[in-house]
């Protein structure tokens, strides 16, 4: 078990698969990040029912510079996971023929470009909210 983890993690780092490899790793990292966030999010929102007096107090933690930074990072992880996840699901379910080196590599590059293009406006809008401009 421990040997598997050591081998697995060192293999994940040492394997030289370029951008496609980083995309695979990022899908897992972003997935884990979103799952941790989602678990906390379920608990925080649940206080609306179980402990309503705590809801606004806990929520005010988001109205801090750290809260804004966390929100911006989460936005990147969610957008990346969604764009890349759509690519994987679409290829696997409807276009298995696109899993050949050239189309697959193009789609990996497109994934990062689309992610960044969607992320930038989200960051700007979240910052504007945070500084009470909108």
């Amino acid at each position: 078990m421990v040997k598997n983890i050591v081998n697995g993690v060192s293999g994940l780092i040492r394997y030289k698969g370029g951008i496609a490899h980083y995309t695979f790793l990022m899908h897992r990292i972003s997935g884990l990040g979103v799952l941790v966030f989602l678990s906390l999010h379920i608990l925080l929102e649940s206080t609306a029912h179980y402990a309503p007096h705590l809801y606004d107090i806990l929520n005010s933690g988001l109205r801090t510079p750290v809260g804004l930074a966390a929100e911006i990072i989460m936005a990147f992880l969610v957008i990346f996971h969604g764009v890349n996840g759509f690519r994987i699901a679409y290829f696997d379910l409807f276009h298995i023929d696109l899993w050949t080196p050239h189309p697959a590599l193009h789609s990996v590059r497109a994934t990062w470009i689309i992610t960044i293009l969607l992320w930038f406006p989200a960051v700007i809008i979240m910052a504007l909210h945070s500084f009470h401009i909108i």
Partner: protein
Amino acid sequence: MTSNRRLQIKPTLDVTAWKYMRLSAILLIPMVWFHTIFTTLIIGAENTNLELVAARWATIGWRVYDILLLAFAFSHGITGLRQILFDFATSTTARKALNILLLLFWLALSAVGILGIIGGVAK
């Protein structure tokens, strides 16, 4: 050129999990994006408070939407975590233990969230 061949695959738990990840992903992309665009870009974290949650949950449709979103997103996340852990835990014993732990974690947090939404904002 490749030709299409149909193979019969025995629907084990892992095959079902593989399919579930893809199908729930297709469903989750519009659902999560609508949810996050609405809550973080249109309303904004600055303006989120208990009153607003109460106002939203006054409509049954919002509650149904939130329950479905929680159910699909959290089960997708737990299945994904299982897939990652199974890459490292390869023995039958470890996998059985992980299956039980993940099932308990999934049921517990889903119950907390879903019962909270059904109960609504406590007065």
